[in-house]
C-alpha cells in the first residue's frame, strides 16, 4: 500500500519535471567530435583540390565493397599548383551499403577521407535507393562548404595520447589544409587575386604531349608513352599474334592496330604492308575496309590467307595419318594438291593442282578429281565430321572457332559445336 503511494509520488515528481525530449527536426543537439556517420572526402584548401589521389587503398580495404575510386593524372601538377601527381578523378560511395566501420579512414595515407561528424552526415533520407550512391561532388561537398569544421580521426588522438604518455614528440596536426582556417586563407588569396591554390613550383612544359600533337597523330592510348612502355606493348602484342599465327587463326584487328602503332615487323609479315606512319584507331576504321581486316575476305573462301590456312590444316591432318601409318584420305590429298602443299609430292601425288579462282564457291564441294565424285555422301559425311571434330578441338582448347570453319560446317549441314557440347 505504501508502495503504491510511493510509486504515485514518484510518478508525480516526474510529472512536474521538464521533459527531456529534444524535438529533433526543429532542434538538433550538438554531435560529438567522434560522431561517426558516413565517410566523406576532405578538400585541400591550400591546393584547391581533394586530398584523395584515387590510390584505391580504402577501396581495397572496404569490407563491404561500397567504394569505387578512379585515379587520374593531376592537371595541377604540371601547372605547379600541386605536388600530387595523381588525383581522384571519380569517387563513388554507396551509402546504402556502407556500414560505417571507419576502416577507410584508418587506412587512408593522405587524410583524404573522414567520417562526417555533422548532422548533414546523418540526414540521408531519399526516396530512391540509388540516390544513396554519392559521387565525388557529393562526397566533397561537406568539406568544401566548410561544414566539416572538425574532421576527426581516432588514430590521430591515439597517436597523440601515446606520444604524450611516453613523452615523445607529439605528432603533427592532421587535416590542417582542410580546416576552416585554411578555408579562410584560401578566401583571402582569392580576394587578393592570387588564385585559389598556392603556387608550389614553376609550371612545367610538357614535352611529350606537345611533340605528339605536332606530328598530327590523334590522341590515343599510345600518345605520350615512353620508349620502354611502347616496346613492352609491342612485345606483348607480338607474342599474342605469334600464338594466333601458330594456330592458323586470324590476327585480330585490335592486335594489328597495336602492332602497327608500335612499328612491329610482324605487322608487315601478316599484312604484307608497311606499318602505317599514322595508324588509324580500330574504331575509326569501321567505315573503310582495310586489307588486313578479317572481315574483308570473309565472303571469299579462296583468299590467299584462307588457302594457306586450309593447306596447313590439311598438312597437319595428313601428318597425323602418316604417323599412324594410315593412308591419307583422298579428300585430304585433293586439298593438299589444290593448296600446292609440298607434302603432296612427298606423298606421291602427281596431279597438277587445279587453279582455284577467287570468288568461286567452296572448292571442297565444287571441284572434282580423277578419283571420282568428291561430293559423294560418304565423303561429305567424312568432311563434315572432320570439320566438326576440328571445331570441337578448338573449343576444348578454349579457342574461338574461326568464321571459315563455321561456314564450312554449315555448308556441310553439320552442327557447330557450342561450349555446352564441349564436354
Amino acid at each position, binding site marked *: 500500500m505504501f508502495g503504491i503511494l510511493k510509486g504515485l509520488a514518484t510518478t508525480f515528481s*516526474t510529472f512536474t519535471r521538464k*521533459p527531456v525530449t529534444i524535438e529533433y527536426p526543429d532542434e538538433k543537439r550538438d554531435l560529438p567530435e567522434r560522431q561517426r556517420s558516413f565517410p566523406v572526402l576532405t578538400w585541400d584548401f591550400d591546393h584547391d583540390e581533394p586530398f584523395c589521389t584515387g590510390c584505391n587503398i580504402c577501396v581495397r580495404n572496404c569490407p563491404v565493397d561500397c567504394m569505387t575510386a578512379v585515379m587520374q593524372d593531376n592537371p595541377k601538377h604540371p601547372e605547379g599548383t600541386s605536388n600530387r601527381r595523381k588525383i581522384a578523378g571519380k569517387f563513388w560511395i554507396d551509402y546504402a551499403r556502407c556500414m560505417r566501420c571507419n576502416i577507410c579512414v584508418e587506412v587512408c595515407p593522405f587524410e583524404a577521407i573522414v567520417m562526417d561528424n555533422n548532422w548533414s552526415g546523418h540526414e540521408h533520407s531519399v526516396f530512391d535507393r540509388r540516390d544513396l550512391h554519392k559521387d565525388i561532388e557529393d562526397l566533397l561537398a561537406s568539406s568544401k562548404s566548410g561544414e566539416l569544421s572538425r574532421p576527426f580521426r581516432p588514430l590521430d588522438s591515439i597517436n597523440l595520447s601515446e606520444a604524450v604518455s611516453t613523452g615523445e614528440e607529439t605528432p603533427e596536426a592532421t587535416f590542417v589544409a582542410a580546416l576552416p582556417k585554411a578555408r579562410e586563407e584560401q578566401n583571402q588569396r582569392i580576394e587578393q587575386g592570387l588564385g585559389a591554390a598556392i603556387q608550389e613550383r614553376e609550371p612545367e612544359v610538357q614535352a611529350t604531349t606537345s611533340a605528339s600533337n605536332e606530328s598530327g597523330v590523334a590522341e590515343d592510348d599510345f600518345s605520350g608513352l615512353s620508349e620502354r612502355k611502347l616496346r613492352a606493348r609491342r612485345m606483348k602484342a607480338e607474342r599474342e599474334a605469334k600464338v594466333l599465327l601458330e594456330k592458323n587463326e586470324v590476327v585480330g584487328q585490335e592486335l594489328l592496330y597495336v602492332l602497327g602503332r608500335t612499328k612491329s615487323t610482324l605487322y608487315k609479315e601478316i599484312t604484307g604492308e608497311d606499318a602505317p606512319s599514322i595508324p588509324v584507331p580500330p574504331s575509326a576504321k569501321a567505315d573503310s575496309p582495310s586489307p588486313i581486316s578479317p572481315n574483308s575476305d570473309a565472303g571469299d573462301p579462296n583468299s590467299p590467307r584462307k588457302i594457306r590456312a586450309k593447306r596447313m590444316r590439311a598438312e597437319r591432318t595428313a601428318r597425323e595419318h602418316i604417323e599412324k601409318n594410315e593412308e591419307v584420305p583422298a579428300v585430304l590429298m585433293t586439298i593438299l594438291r589444290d593448296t600446292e602443299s609440298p607434302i603432296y609430292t612427298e606423298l606421291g601425288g602427281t596431279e597438277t593442282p587445279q587453279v582455284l579462282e577467287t570468288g568461286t564457291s567452296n572448292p571442297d564441294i565444287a571441284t572434282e578429281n580423277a578419283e571420282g565424285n568428291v561430293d559423294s555422301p560418304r565423303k561429305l559425311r567424312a568432311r563434315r565430321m572432320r570439320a566438326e571434330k576440328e571445331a570441337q578441338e578448338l573449343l576444348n582448347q578454349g579457342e574461338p572457332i574461326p568464321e571459315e570453319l563455321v561456314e564450312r560446317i554449315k555448308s556441310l549441314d553439320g552442327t557447330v559445336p557450342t561450349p555446352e557440347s564441349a564436354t
Partner: protein
Amino acid sequence: MSFGDPFFGISWLDIIIRTLIMVSAMTVVVIYLTYGERKVVARFQMRLGPTRTGPVGLLQGVADALKLVVKEDLRPRNADRWVFEFAPYATFVPVFLVLLTLPFAEDWGIRNLALGMFFVFAVLGLNIVGVLMAGFGSGNKYALLGGIRAAAQMISYEIPLVVALLTVAMLAGTLDLNQIANLQGDRPFILVQPLAFVIFFIAVLSELHRAPFDIPVAESEIVGGYFVEYSGIRWSMFQLAEYAALWGFSIFGSVVFLGGWNFPFGSEVGVGLQLALTLIKSTLMIFLIFWVRATMPRLRMDQLMSFCWKVLIEISFALLLVTGFFLYYNWPQEILALVNWGGALLLLIAIFIRTRRKSKAGDLVGTYKNIEVTE
C-alpha cells in the same frame, strides 16, 4: 425556460436535439481525452507526447479519428456476422445511456431521472453483453477468452462498485443524481464516506479496463483481447465507448462523491460556474486515473479476481452494514466519517502489514512488494 423543458415544446424534436448535442459533445470530449491521455502520460514519463499535428499536437485526436474512419473494416470469414458487427454498438450504447442522465449543472442534464443512479447500474450491466458478443462473434478463440476474462472482471467489480455507491445513496436517501448533488452543499460525500470513494475508484478503474486492471485489453500481451479481430470504425467504436465511459464515470463520481456542481459555491452561482465546477472535478478524476495508469504495472488475472472477491467485496459490505447501523440509530454523520477514516487507516495498516509478509501465490498485495532475493 429552464434546461429541463423540451426544446421548442415538441417532445420528439427535443429528443433528437438533446441526443445530437450529447453525441457531438461526447465525440469532441473523447477525441481530446485520447489526446490528453497521451500528453499526460507522456509528461509522467518526461516526454512531450504528440506535438506535430497542429499546434502542440492538438489535432492528433482528429487525425487519429480520421484515420480510423478511413481504415478498412475487416471481418474474419468465420465470424458470426451479425453478432460481430453489432458488438461495438452493444458496447457503446449503454455508455451513451449513462451519459444521458448525468447532471452537469443544477437541473442541467439531458434527462434528469428520479432513479438516476439505479439507471446507471442497470445500463452498465449491458456493457458486458457487448464485450461478450465481440469475443464470441469474432470466431477467434483468443478473442473469446479475452471476452470471457473481460466479462468476469466487469461482473466481479460491479458488486463492490454498486455497494459502495449504495452507501452514499443510503446517506442521501435518494437515487436522483441531481438530488444527491444538491445534498452536498456543505460537505461532499467523500469526506463522510472516503472508504466508499476508494472502493468506487478502484472498481471504476476495473470497469473501464484502465491500468492496473487493463487485463482484458493488455496490448502487450493479448493485443486487445475481445476486440482483437476488429479494425477501423468498429474498433474505434470500442475506443469511443471506453473513453466515453471514462468521461461518464468521472462526472458520475464527481457528482456522487465530490459534490458535483454544488459543493464549494452552492446552487446560487449560475449554470456557467456550476458546469465549470463539474468539468474541473471530473478532469481531476480523469487525471487521477491517468496518474494511476502511469504508475501501476498490470495485475495478474488471479490477483485481480482475488482482490475483488477477498478484499473489496468484504470491505464494501462491512461499510454497508456500518452505514446502515448509523442511519438506523440516527448517529451523527461526523462519527460515521470518523469511523470511515479510521477504517480506511486500519485497512491501510492491514495491507501494509501484509505487504511486509513474504508473498505467497494468490496474495493480492504481495505484488506491490519489492521482493528481496535471499539465499
